[in-house]
């Protein structure tokens, strides 16, 4: 059994202690916005915030999570997709297939929470999630927009 604080709600789940937090979030709590991509903390599709820090939930055994740990998933990032990162994502039209985007958005939100004006190098260092569709250019533009920058001319010439 594990007690979890997810998106501000305390939840109790019956699972083995070695179950990855990702699968508890998805299957026990029904929050499927957090994705399975690799299971080995490589791709970042499973990214969540734990106590404000970016974490890859596929590699966190639920038994190591305390009830006092505040977990935020994409569903809890904001009401009505109102987080500046989500708004910038919409403005730039970032997603293609969309599968990795929950993780990308959670990573970008964590970056901006600790660095209000990230440089390109900061973005390179922080944004290590894999996107197979290749939305990186628009992810970068959206982060800059969310950071208060201007919309970068994008798209076709």
């Amino acid at each position, binding site marked *: 059994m594990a007690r979890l604080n997810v998106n501000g709600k305390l939840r109790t789940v019956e699972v083995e202690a070695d179950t990855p937090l990702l*699968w508890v979030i998805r299957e026990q709590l029904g929050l499927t916005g957090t994705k399975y991509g690799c299971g080995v903390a490589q791709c970042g599709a499973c990214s969540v915030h734990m106590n404000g820090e970016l974490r890859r939930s596929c590699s966190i055994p639920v038994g190591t999570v305390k009830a006092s740990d505040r977990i935020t998933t994409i569903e809890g990032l904001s009401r009505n997709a109102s987080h500046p990162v989500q708004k910038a994502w919409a403005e730039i039209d970032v997603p293609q297939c*969309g599968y990795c985007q929950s993780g990308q958005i959670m990573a970008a939100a964590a970056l901006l929470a600790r660095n209000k004006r990230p440089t390109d190098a900061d973005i390179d260092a922080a944004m290590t999630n894999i996107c197979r569709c290749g939305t990186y250019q628009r992810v970068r533009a959206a982060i800059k927009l969310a950071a208060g920058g201007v919309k970068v001319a994008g798209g076709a010439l």
Partner: protein
Amino acid sequence: MSAAVGISRRRFIIDSAVAGGGLAVGLSLPGAVMAVPAAAGASSASALGGSFGATAPGAEVTVWVVVQPDDHCVIRIARTEMGQGTLTGLAQLVAEELECDWAKVKTEFPTPGQSLARKRAWGEMGTGGSRGIRMSEDYVRRGGAAARIMLLQAAATRLGVPGAELAVERGVIRHAASGRSLRYGEVCEAAARLDVPDPRSITLKKPADWKIAGKPLKRLDTAPKLDGSKKFALDLELPGMLYAAIKDCPVFGGKVVSFDETALASRKGVKRVVRVGDTAVAVVADSWWRARSALAALPIVWDEAGFGNRSSATIDALLKDGLDTPNAFVYRNEGDAPAAIAGAVKRIDADYATPFLAHATMEPMNATARVTADRAEAWVPTQNGEGSHASLAEATGLPLDRCEIYKCDPGGGFGRRGGNQDYVRQAALIAKQFPGVPVKLIWSREEDMAHDFYRPISQCRLSAGLDEKGQLAGLQVRLSGQSINAFINPGSVADGRDERQLQGWFEKPGDAQLGYTVPNLRIEYAMRNSHVPVGPWRGVNTNQNGVYMECFMEEVARAAGADPWQFRRRLMANHPKHLAVLDAAAERAGWGKPLPAGVHRGIAQFMGYGSYSAAVAEVSIGTDGHVKVHRLVFALNCGHAVNPHQIAAQVEGSVAYGLSATFYGECTVENGRMVQSNFHDYPIMRMAEMPPVETIVMPSNDFWGGVGEPTICVVGPAVLNAIFAATGRPVRSLPLRKYNLA
């Protein structure tokens, strides 16, 4: 594709892959009962809170357009949306002719069962080969135009005026003389009762008059991708659902001998261990993690079927033989290339190689199936809904009209979820053993890497001769490697005459034509098939062939002492569209102008999927050998540009796909199985490696070309040619990470 009840899965795959998109003939279904399977399926599908199939309320004016009383227009989309933007582009084309309000457009996907019941009213569903828009633009536009004509006719009757006196804009029909107006929503019911005009009688708008199509509009499907609310197939939950983890024999072609399920006796939640066909074992449990953990602990004995001794070394030797053999399929033989090369002032020879590659879609293979004695349903991330349908029918033994597929937008496709519906077959075979219970099969990433249909491995030997003026007198190309058609349909290419593997060297225009005119030219292919399954892969053969042709062209140009751009230009006078994109990319990139110290340029052009592509790369190499791509400039002529914003997104995406392949991608074989298992040993390019991409979309508006794939084939060669410029040494074998460029 054409298909008939009772055909085998393999046969279906052949038809879908070889016949291709809109060239298809109508579906023939002898004796099929035209029940409406979706009606039964809709209830269970809607229980998910999702929406599957053509179910929106309103008046169906044509099969493509449902108008609702509040003026919303629901546009039906038959092709798959897997990130490439086809949904938005097709909706733009229909909306353009419909003259509706773009702000009130919604979309829905008819199911394969609905398509079957309505005699394939929406045509081809398969989505691959960059065909989604170019092969359906004509009939979807006519479907939109027909609906507009019917809505106007209904309004004319209602107002008692001649139709010619009406004008429509954004779904509002106006009669100027009387000042009266009607909204689409007010006449949709009456319009739906009218006869649909003959599509051939309709004159479509000229692209120059487009107001919705051709514009850089935002995608229609973005919002649910921002807050986690979008349901991928992997996210489906059904009451009473069970979860399956699967392991197929790691050696391709091998089989299951036995497994010891008593080893799992103490594991919580495990329902059963089941055999899946001859080759795989699945553990079914009450959660996927429990199923996966149990599977990892399950002892399985495999029969490697004699393939356990195969390796990359044996496969390389097989392909090397294909380079050396005198017996090959001679596809083009113009003039006398061997003689021209033998008699040349200067001769250039090179052998190139590219490896197997996995698709590695972000959403791993998965499907949910529910099977009873007389009905089967499956929720599938598919590029080929009708292929999924056929696979479900075959695996369950039920007729097609007792089966239904709910298409889920795939989390990436890239060719993996098209012709071969192995994961649907598996889900069906598992669910069949749990009658009435929905079972969600999810592949682990490791299973996904181990059982792909890989991009074909190949090697290429190229020879060229330069005359005394430094002109290309002769070119000979010998390709050796695996054939996709031979895997899908061995009989179709039994004699080794497989032109598909020579994509990009085609003689005839329109698809993947070689853009050079060489006086003496010989193109040959020696088919060499290993036991590794192969299949389409975003851009597939144009990618490998683009590297071979364009990197070798760089070697030849440099041997001639010529500028690589100008050397190419001299061979392209007969190919103005190829030349136009090459020039556009070169000029935009400032070819020939000074660069910062240590930065070098490379250029490439190649053609595939009906579109013309060129790229210029700017690259530097650090003292540690690290390659940095500073800039990539593309020019693309895809004929008509339905949404330049989304086209640019596809070009940017093609860079990530193409650079991942160029720098990292390699699947190797040991002991008959794939070595790579996850992203730690099959790396994918990340943000820090993504160069700024500039995309010139330059439609010539006289043909319809593809968008999702064409530009990948110039990404690798442009970068590799810039590396050549930097080091003075060609790169002839991929991936780059095998090289030490320090």
